[in-house]
């Protein structure tokens, strides 16, 4: 489904590569977790895969298509849930979703039905006509997620979809993502919640300094790492305990 070849990104003025010669293959139906400390290059990688950033070198295809030649088709094929809420605060949840749904060409009753169904699933039906400015972080995250999946994408990219939300919101989000995956959606997501990733992802890749250090099925990674009881042990063993502050 996703084939990444020697993909690199170096920001203007930066000394180091944010992503360096990265190779990765994500098969259809997988839930692929991109894990790594702050500044590891996860968001940069997702931004390149969703056409938000231009790679410095290398290439990738999604479903056999690349952005240079099939931009429109690819945009229709993928969904993105950015780390920021990316909503109009003075519009209601319904109006926000109506607008973003329309941008995918969905219209009329189909769009209305889809929005209402998703709001119902995410427990937001009674807040449909409230401005998103009044929503809690968890509610905004859920609307943010719906905006990325209204057009039923084949590949869904999520950048920290559960960051800063309560346990209940996180549970609803993860459950729905699992449901979408069962329906055939391939998911690529970044997270700092290693416990969540361990049970949610079919595959993970631990990235540090723009490179993949280790990748595979979570249970196998734990098994292969001496003294590791969970994914967090693997993560710390692979990336070290030094703080990763950056500005």
């Amino acid at each position: 489904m996703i084939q990444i070849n020697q993909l690199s990104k170096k920001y203007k003025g930066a000394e180091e590569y944010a992503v360096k010669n990265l190779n990765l293959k994500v098969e259809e139906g997988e839930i692929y977790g991109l894990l790594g400390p702050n500044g590891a290059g996860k968001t940069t990688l997702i931004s390149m895969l969703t056409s938000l950033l231009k790679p410095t070198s290398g290439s990738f295809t999604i479903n056999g298509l690349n952005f240079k030649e099939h931009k429109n088709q690819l945009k229709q094929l993928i969904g993105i849930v950015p780390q920021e809420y990316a909503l109009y605060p003075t519009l209601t949840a319904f109006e926000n979703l109506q607008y973003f749904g329309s941008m995918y060409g969905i219209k009329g009753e189909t769009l209305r039905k889809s929005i209402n169904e998703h709001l119902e699933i995410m427990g937001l039906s009674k807040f449909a006509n409230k401005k998103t400015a009044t929503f809690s972080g968890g509610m905004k995250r859920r609307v943010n997620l719906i905006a990325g999946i209204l057009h039923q994408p084949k590949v869904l990219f999520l950048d920290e979809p559960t960051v800063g939300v309560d346990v209940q919101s996180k549970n609803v989000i993860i459950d729905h993502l699992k449901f979408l995956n069962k329906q055939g959606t391939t998911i690529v997501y970044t997270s700092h919640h290693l416990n969540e990733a361990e049970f949610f992802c079919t595959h993970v890749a631990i990235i540090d300094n723009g490179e993949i250090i280790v990748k595979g099925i979570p249970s196998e990674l734990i098994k292969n790492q001496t003294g590791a009881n969970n994914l967090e042990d693997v993560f710390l063993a692979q990336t070290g305990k030094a703080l990763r502050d950056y500005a």
Partner: protein
Amino acid sequence: MYFWHKPEKPFAIMHKLWASTYKEMLLLIRDLGGIAILFIMPMLLLIVITLVQDSTFKTINDIKIPVLLVDNDKGEVSKNIIENLSESNSFEILQKSSEEEAKEAVFSGEYQLAIVIPENLSASLQKKVDQNVEGILSKFGLEEDSLTVAKVVIPQKEVRLYFDPATQVSFKSSVKNGIDKMISKIETQSIYKAFQTELGEDGAEPIFDTENFISFKEILPTKNNAEIIPNSAQHNVPAWTLFAIFFIIVPLSINLVKEKNQGTFVRLRTNPVNYATVLGGKTIVYLGVCLIQFTLMLLVGIYLFPAIGLPGVDVSGKLPMLYVVAFFSGLAAIGLGLLLGTITKTQEQSAPFGATLVVILAALGGVWVPVFVMPKFMQSISKISPMNWGLEAFYDVFLRNVGFAKILPEISLLLLFFLVTIKIAIIYNQKKNAV
């Protein structure tokens, strides 16, 4: 095509354009404070400016400027000067006894002007005139005893004017010209009078006509055989309406910058919608705002101005053309606003830059100072200001009473400006976000 390798179906584009327009409309109407500023402030600006400028356009001025007058002459000439100043209806004469006192009051800003008439002005003028007249008559051999009048040197007299240093140059010039003209007239009348006396004629029956022989008349454009007399409203409504229309670039550029900062623009970049469609939605809504602004300002000119004692705006038979000019001026302003919003990254950049740019364009366009009084090189620059094109088109319709063909070059330039600015914005966005 910029964003699509396979062209989208027109119906799909229309649907996205409609959705973008509807979203922009919702964003606008949810910001009541913003709407109030967009509509009320331009009207307030128009009313204030017209009230302030109204007197300069009035032929019969009912505003009297207090003027200090120190009469050291107390003769025929000073009496004449005082009478003329009073009759002009422009000045309220306040007599002062000392020049020092008058000077202090003016230089401290208490009064704008003081006139000091020198001592013995009447007597000296009379002597000088008599001397000149006798000299002329003796040349013609009409003087009975030319040697009896000794040729004495009469020193020149000066009427002193004191202006408040804060007084504008244009006011000073018009006062100086007025007083110069008045003094010339008094001198001329004295000369005629002296001739009459020397020729032994009865002063009660003047043989010279002292009125000006050459006069002038301003010929104004006419409509239905009636003269179109320019007034402050006819000048201010188009100028300040245009100014307000162009101020739309501030909220519009902020709108775009907000999209970038709140993350919605990032989402839109991942959606299958081109930037032109996003800008199209904003253009439609803000063009509507411009036309509503224009309508409100016209209503102020037509109905409110006469109610508060200002001259009303005559739009009879001109409305369609006025809306055409407003439409294209709005487009030019929106193009500039969208370009600014595309290039700038923060509100701190877009708001002050946009506001200052509008003021510069207004100055260049001739909103404050007419283009013909600008230095030559500024006149050339003025020709590339979209506000100048808009203003000229408005004046063509409002004051010159011309047909559609005459405004075609100006509205074509405004449309071209819109297309060029939008194209630059799209290319910039494409280059910036190319993948």
